[in-house]
Each structure stands twice: as structure tokens, then as C-alpha cells.
């Protein structure tokens, strides 16, 4: 089962310019991110700190902020879209 992750411009320097990535065989957002960390060197340090997301990183599943769901434990299904965005916009 595959989940599509949308990569923000701020992270594309570590994804070789890729704006999207597919991650297979995952059941939670945490596993999706682990899959990305395995594939892209340096990504983990950009968005995570001490095993949790940095405070200015927002992650969405199907447009819903994971903090309204189960955080990194939020379940993902085949075909879901996970979006990573900086949290410092708006107002």
C-alpha cells in the first residue's frame, strides 16, 4: 500500500528537488516519515527533534492537521496524501 507525501520547497534541497514521494507498506504517519528519513539523507534533522516534530512543522493527512488526529500515530491508508508544510504562515 502506498501513501503520497507532498514535500514543501524548503525540503527539496534534501529530496533532490522531488516535490512528491511515494512511501510503501506503512500504517501510520510516523512510519511514513521514517520511510522518508531512510530515503533522504538529512531530512530527519530538518523537521524532527528528539523523536518528535519540530514546533514549526505542520503535517496533514488528507488536509487534516495530525494534531487533531492521533499525531504521529495517525493511521494512513492506501492512496492517502500526507502534506508537510511550514507552520509559520498566515495572520
Amino acid at each position, binding site marked *: 500500500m502506498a501513501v503520497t507525501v*507532498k514535500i*514543501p*520547497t*524548503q*525540503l527539496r*534541497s534534501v529530496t533532490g528537488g522531488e*516535490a512528491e514521494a511515494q512511501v510503501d507498506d506503512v500504517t501510520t504517519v510516523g512510519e511514513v516519515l521514517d520511510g522518508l528519513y531512510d530515503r533522504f539523507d538529512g531530512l530527519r534533522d*530538518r*523537521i524532527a527533534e528528539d523523536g518528535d516534530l*519540530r*514546533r*514549526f*512543522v*505542520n503535517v*496533514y493527512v488528507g*488536509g487534516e*492537521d495530525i*494534531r*487533531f488526529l492521533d499525531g504521529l500515530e495517525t493511521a494512513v491508508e492506501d492512496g492517502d496524501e500526507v*502534506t508537510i*508544510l*511550514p*507552520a*509559520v*504562515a*498566515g*495572520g
Partner: protein
Amino acid sequence: MSVQALKCKECGERYPLDARYACEVCFGPLEVEYDLSGLDAESTRRRIQAGPQTIWRYADFLPFEQPPKTALAAGVTPLVRADRLADRLGVREVWIKNDAANPTHSFKDRVVTVALAKARELGYEVVACASTGNLANAVAAHAAAAGLESYVFIPADLEEQKVLATGVYGTKLVAVKGNYDDVNRLCTELSGEREGWAFVNVNVRPYYAEGSKTLSYEIAEQLGFELPDRVVGPIASGSLFTKLGRGFQEWIEVGLLEGEVPTMNGAQAEGCSPVAQAFEGGHDVCRPVRPETIAKSLAIGNPADGPYALDLARRTGGSIDSVTDDEIRAGIRLLAETTGIFTETAGGVTTAVLRKLAERGDIDSSERVVAVITGEGLKTLDAVKGSFETHLIEPSADAFAQEFEQDAVAVAD
């Protein structure tokens, strides 16, 4: 030239002064960095006083080498001493900074005029924003005046007055089926894909946010280059509130003001109070909420500058309080009845929190307090519907006398 670079507020990484807003190292927010060491207080003060009657009189503290030419001015709004309000609250001295007196009737003219000037300098021809209404008005108007194409994204359930006062300028108005946080997420995503677009509160946000500092500069200048003891202001994303503190801090550093940053009190609506909740709970970060309040201009459930607003309130001995929708309506009435200033729901939030602070005994009898009123009452008319009585009479003196018994006696005499 005092403007230096963009600097990450979290990790300190520096970037050139282009269109970017998030640190590539840690995702922290970027802020404009200045070197103010070359500014001499006396000559800076003279330059300000000789400057135009707009925010550009503070050009030394804004992110441009030369003050740009802008089509629609902003700033230099009245600071009104509100003695009747102070009496009602039982405090000594209250001033109202009436920022409804801007071209599109809110403080957003300040930030948009800075953002658009920077967007043009960087070569953008399309501007856009995610807005809870006031920003929509301002972006549409300033873009029209500057001859720039604009796209304005709003939540679909926005107040009709704010929708009409945006569409009239000929912008491309996009109503998004969702709340503000959905609109903001969409715009954050789009800003990564639309290279020729300047989203005022996304990719040029560090410059945009600088415009809010001019509120502090004006308050201080209008008080005769003196600091107030306390400032009460609204919090949505926390950007305005944070920059109010920064503005005072910069002028203290340069020597234009003597003393400390005022006690800063933030105001939120209870139905959308992630920052007030974090303040009360002693947290450094805000847990996002789903907004449910009449104060739609403050209805940001996921506030970008929440951590910095918390820090400012704590650092200055202030607080962040929330008030109910009924208290907001009462706040609008209180300000209107004692000052003649009709504010929108956000100003009702600020006034209601000011009242709460007074009732709680937080305001010392020697204090000079400034309340920042950020928007115009005509934008949220529904909030005052049914809050007063209208006397419907036949067009005759008798009917009038009957309706007003007291006056009837006077007429008979």
C-alpha cells in the same frame, strides 16, 4: 542602511533579503534583521518628525534601503485619550489607538503597504493572501491602487460586509469551503507552486509583519516619545502582538524611548483561544483549536507566532486573556458609548479584555494604558444587531411624546 538580512528566530541562520519565510534548517520563522547601531537618537527623531504623514516616516526601521513609493498610504491614525472609558473602568488613563482610521479601515493597511512595496521591489506582479477579512480588504485595495493583479483567499463563511468590501476593488476573490486554517494551508501549499506570486502573509511574511511595528512607533511618538505602561492588543496569529513589543524594543535600543517594553496583554475570543489557553496552562507552544466565535478576524486556530506571543506576555509581566462572545458584544458597546469609536468584533475582544484586566485589579492606579483597536465596526454589523432598541413612531408630536414620557412632561411645561 540598517536592514541586514533575514534571520531565523529559532536557530539564527541568515538568508538574503528575498521572498522566503521559513528556515531551511529548522523550519523556524524568518525575521528581518537590522543593524540599528548607526542610528543616532536625535537625528533619527528629527528625520521622523520631518517625514510624511504615513508609516514611511519610520523608514529607518522598515526593510528598505530607500522609502518606496506606494500608491495607497497607511498609518498615522489617531491616538485618542478615553477619559469616559477610563472612568467606567475605574482606571486613571486610557488611550485608544484607533487603527480603523486607515484606508481600508483596519491595521492591515500597514502590513500590506510594506508587503506590496517589497513584492514590487522583488519583481512580483501578482499578489495574494489568506485572509480572515481585513487583510482581504487591504490586499485587494492596495493591489488595485498599485496596478497589480491580486488573488484573495477567504473562508467561505466570512461576514458579508468584508466580502463586499473586498470584491469591489476588482480582485479575484476565492471563497474556500473551510475555515481560516484550511485557507492558510492551501495558500502555504500554493505559494510553493506559484513562483510568480507574492503571498503577503506567506512567502513575503517577514516583511509584511514589519509593518505592525509602526503601530508602536506611532503610539510612542503620539505620546511625545514616551512609553505607555501597558498595551492591550488582539491576538490572532500573534504577529501583530509580537511586533508591538519589537517596535518598542527597537526604539528603546536606539534611545528614542527611555524605559522598558510595556506590560503586554493579549486578547483572544474564548471560542478561539489557543494562545490564552497555552498561557493559562503554562505551555510554550499552542495546541491548535477549531474556531467557533463571532470574532472571525481573530479566528486562527493554529497561530504561527503563538510561542512568541506567549514569551512576550510572560517577559513583560502581562497576560493573554480570553472573553466570551457576549463579552465581545458588550465590549463593542462599551467602546462606542464612551469614546464614539465603533469597532469590529476584534476591537470588542480587546475592549472586553481591557475591562477584565481592570475588574481583576491588574491595572495599577498610576498606569497609562493603550488599547489597540484594529478594525472598523461597519465590517461586522451583525455583532450589534438587536443590542439596542429603536423607537418606531407615527410622524406626529403626540406619538413622540407618548413614546418618551419624560420628554412629554417637558413639552407640556
